[in-house]
């Protein structure tokens, strides 16, 4: 295996050709975007006049009820879909899907390096680049382990690393911790904050867990039921690490729940 920390600069791989209306600095701007899908039972409007902004290196959490168009929003930001109306102006974004979607035939190391392989980097180079990161993420002993033998928390860390190694300024995280048990989820919240401290990225974190949003994000955007649009924005200026039981966290959580229409 390669020497630890040998090619750490791989992470800063050049962001390839800018998308239309590129926010090259890592910012994200979604302005009054609407999106309707044709389904068998007629058109379904996922988003109606949704707006969202994220400054470079800002962590924005998007919370909303199930089916409010959160995943559609992420796909618009990632350029996987185009809006029917409105504007999406975003730096290149890499997705972290809801289920970890690790490839069962690859080791943890090769899964972590998938984004590099996708760009045509050789297997050896991808391993050399990913190995020090696996070490840093506390998975150094699991390089050759296949996903089926990793715990849920470890799988999510590999999945996050895979997205991080795509080298994009924006990370689009789609309910990344929803499938984890409560204790592991809390650990992951602390861990994510820690990672972003040393590897700042613009993060759009979609979640239905209001508490998760308040603990992880700089700002929380609350969405309405479908068709989704932003109904409230809550700045979270509390210092990190944040604790669930902190009265200020509880207060913001109640505020967000109120905006969602949930009575305290």
């Amino acid at each position: 295996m390669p020497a630890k920390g040998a090619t750490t600069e791989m992470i800063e791989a050049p962001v390839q050709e800018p998308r239309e209306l590129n926010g090259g600095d890592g910012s994200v701007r979604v302005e009054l975007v609407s999106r309707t899908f044709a389904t068998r039972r007629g058109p379904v409007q996922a988003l109606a006049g949704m707006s969202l902004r994220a400054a470079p290196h800002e962590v924005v959490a998007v919370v909303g009820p199930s089916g409010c168009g959160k995943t559609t929003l992420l796909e618009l930001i990632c350029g996987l879909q185009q809006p029917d109306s409105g504007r999406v102006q975003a730096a290149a974004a890499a997705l972290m899907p809801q289920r970890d979607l690790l490839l069962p035939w690859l080791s943890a190391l090769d899964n972590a390096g998938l984004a590099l392989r996708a760009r045509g980097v050789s297997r050896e180079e991808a391993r050399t680049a990913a190995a020090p990161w696996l070490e840093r993420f506390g998975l150094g002993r699991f390089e050759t382990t296949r996903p089926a033998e990793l715990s849920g928390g470890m799988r999510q860390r590999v999945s996050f690393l895979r997205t991080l190694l795509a080298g994009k300024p924006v990370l689009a995280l789609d309910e990344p911790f929803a499938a984890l048990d409560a204790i592991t989820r809390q650990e992951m919240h602390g861990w994510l904050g820690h990672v972003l401290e040393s590897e700042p990225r613009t993060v759009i974190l979609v979640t239905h867990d209001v508490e998760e949003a308040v603990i992880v994000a700089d700002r929380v955007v609350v969405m309405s039921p479908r068709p989704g649009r932003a109904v409230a924005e809550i700045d979270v200026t509390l210092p990190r690490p944040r604790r669930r039981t902190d009265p200020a966290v509880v207060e913001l959580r109640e505020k967000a729940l109120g905006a969602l229409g949930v009575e305290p």
Partner: protein
Amino acid sequence: MSRVRQAWPAALLLVALIGIWELYVDLHGDTFSLILPAPHQVAKALYTDRGLLWSNFLVTAKEVLLGILLATAVGVVLAVAIHFSPTVRRAVYPLVVASQAVPVVVFAPVLAFWLGFGLLPKLAVIALVSFFSIVVTTTAGFAMVDPDLIKLMRTFDASRLRTFRHVELPTALPGVFTGVKIAVAVSVIGAVFAEWNGSNSGLGYVILQSLPQLLAARGVAAVVILSVFAIALFSLLALAERIALPWAYHDREERA
């Protein structure tokens, strides 16, 4: 150890069936045994005709192995084309299905006319009867690719080809193995039929020659060899799959 224990029911059933067969033939007298030889006669033929059976087995085994290779190549290429292009799917799939409805008896003389009496027409017949399962299961394997993985690869700027290589092809590999395993049994039948049309060697030829010569025991001995060969090939493929795609087994064992 547990494997040996698991094999007991199959062994008992086999012994019981052979016993019933032996009794049935013995009760019907010597003339009947010219039509259906008793197991002890088959065993005797396996021993006395071993030289003849072995040399002809080698001919058929070669045909079957090469035929399966050809079928796998054709089947996988077709499945990939079907996977990539809905137009190809609509154009090719009905013909692939129709090809299975053509009786080999009709086809074989034409193949002999085109390809002569050597190895090639046999390979063509074997591939024709066995490529179908490979196309179907490989196509099903491609259909199991998670659409979210394709989206993920797109946000990683993967080209269509790299997405295919890193995500789609490995997902479909268990499907390829399933198709080839099904093809093994069919291909043996295909080889016998192919040898019935223009050949002078192979176990199919032995069967064809034995029956009119009232050497039914030799014919059934050839069938026994073909069956054992099919079982051996199938087991070998299952083993190869376990070694090549351990991850595909791991999940199943976890659930068990």
